């Protein structure tokens, strides 16, 4: 029997700050307002555009373009690099505002928040559209008058996100069981959050070319043929407005990565970068009270080839030195030394840092952990890298602080600091 469209009241709200990085920059610098502006990873011609302003989007500039491509489309475009603390502060303020409306508030990325009104539906005495307007007003009052957001309201997180992307900037759309088919009829498959070009091609293979056809596809087709997994069942429910995305995944790893501004094959230079990444990763690992059994290194070379390797150690790694030793061990196993464009380090298979098995031969482990904790305390008090490994001497702030894309666990760190 076919599952009907969810007829429940739409109680999930998705808030998306429009062109967040660029709008925040325009908020802080009034002379950049009403001008085409792009925020890029680097302001050099090959730097990647992270966020174009609403004005720049009108010239066809999109996220992911090179700065030089943006300049071809609009020669007067203003190029700026990310002001990371500013964007993080905007996110924290947005989270603070939204926390006033429900017990379930989930940040989906640095510029997106989902409010689930289901736990508080009995105490809401006004329509969600009124609440959305109030949140828009509060964002203007408490974050800045230039900040705009699009709000979507739906029966589940997917429909709320779809609603938020219907009208940008400053939109407010509600998707109910009554207008669901109408909304789908205005969209393409690629407009649905979670449908990439590859998924689109796969759906096309089975004669599904529009979201409406996707909605009308039988469960058996999606589950057994198109997706050939439970993912088909998830899409079947998701498209009909049933919630399946309210899952919290536990943290399984801590990782840091870095795209080298100055690409190099010099092992000494790369060792310094590895040490710095290990120090940052180790700080987060220790803050969470964890130690890691495994370490993973992946490298993208400047000829776009990729190499990676993971390894489980015989003792959990806790200190930066232990993590660095593990990472360097793997790094040295590369089959050939080529120019590195991007390097990523991650540690996985976590255990509680207090449950460390005593080593039979190395009785200094406890001392090293205490020294590591003492160094962390000093850095908490006086600032990051005030006490740092000797390998980092002479290395200025060459690893730039970045904001990760997507639903990042790192957002948790923002609320604790």
């Amino acid at each position: 029997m076919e599952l009907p469209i969810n007829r429940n009241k739409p109680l999930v709200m998705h808030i998306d700050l429009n062109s967040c990085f660029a709008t925040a920059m325009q908020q802080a610098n009034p002379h950049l307002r009403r001008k085409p502006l792009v925020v890029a990873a680097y302001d050099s011609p090959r730097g990647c555009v992270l966020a174009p302003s609403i004005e720049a989007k009108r010239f066809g500039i999109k996220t992911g373009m090179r700065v030089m491509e943006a300049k071809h489309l609009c020669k007067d475009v203003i190029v700026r690099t990310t002001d990371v603390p500013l964007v993080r502060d905007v996110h924290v303020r947005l989270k603070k505002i939204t926390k006033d409306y429900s017990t379930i508030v989930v940040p989906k990325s640095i510029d997106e928040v989902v409010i689930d009104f289901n736990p508080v539906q009995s105490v809401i005495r006004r329509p969600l559209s009124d609440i959305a307007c109030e949140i828009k007003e509060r964002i203007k009052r408490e974050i800045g008058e230039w900040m705009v957001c699009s709000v979507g309201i739906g029966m589940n997180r997917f429909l709320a996100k779809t609603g938020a992307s219907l009208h940008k900037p400053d939109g407010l759309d509600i998707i109910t069981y009554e207008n669901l088919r109408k909304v789908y009829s205005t969209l393409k498959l690629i407009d649905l959050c979670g449908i990439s070009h590859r998924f689109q091609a796969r759906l096309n293979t089975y004669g599904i070319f529009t979201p409406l056809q996707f909605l009308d596809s039988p469960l058996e087709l999606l589950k057994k043929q198109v997706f050939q997994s439970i993912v088909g069942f998830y899409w079947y429910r998701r498209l009909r407005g049933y919630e399946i995305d309210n899952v919290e995944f536990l943290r399984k790893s801590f990782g840091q990565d870095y795209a080298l501004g100055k690409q190099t094959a010099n092992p000494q230079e790369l060792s310094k970068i590895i040490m710095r990444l290990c120090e940052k990763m180790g700080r987060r690992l220790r803050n969470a009270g964890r130690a890691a059994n495994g370490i993973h290194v992946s490298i993208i070379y400047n000829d776009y080839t990729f190499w990676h390797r993971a390894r489980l150690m015989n003792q959990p790694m806790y200190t930066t030195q232990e993590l660095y030793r593990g990472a360097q061990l793997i790094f040295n196993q590369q089959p050939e030394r080529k120019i590195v464009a991007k390097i990523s380090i991650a540690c996985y298979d976590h255990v509680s840092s207090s449950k460390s098995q005593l080593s039979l031969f190395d009785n200094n482990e406890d001392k090293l952990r205490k020294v590591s904790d003492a160094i962390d305390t000093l850095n908490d008090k006086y600032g990051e890298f005030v006490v740092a490994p000797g390998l980092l001497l002479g290395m200025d702030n060459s690893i730039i602080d970045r904001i990760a894309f997507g639903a990042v666990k790192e957002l948790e760190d923002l609320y604790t600091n």
Partner: protein
Amino acid sequence: MHEKINEKISVITKYDRMKGTVMPIKLRWQGRDYIIEKLAYYHRIREGRNIHHIFYVSDGNMDFKLRLDSETLHWTLEETTDGTSN
């Protein structure tokens, strides 16, 4: 034109006890005085136990990013921009 400056500057601030706000109202940089018309954004950055207060202000012709170090009480002009492309 956007420039990174990182120079110590002189700043006059106004404290409003009713609103509980502090607002830089005038700054002197390279011998010139700039009357601040607008506070566009304010946030804090924690560096260890020290807090830096970041003020984004405008005098109507140019935008300034100012940093107040709460430990030393020194003001630094970090950046200026006049809204034109470099």
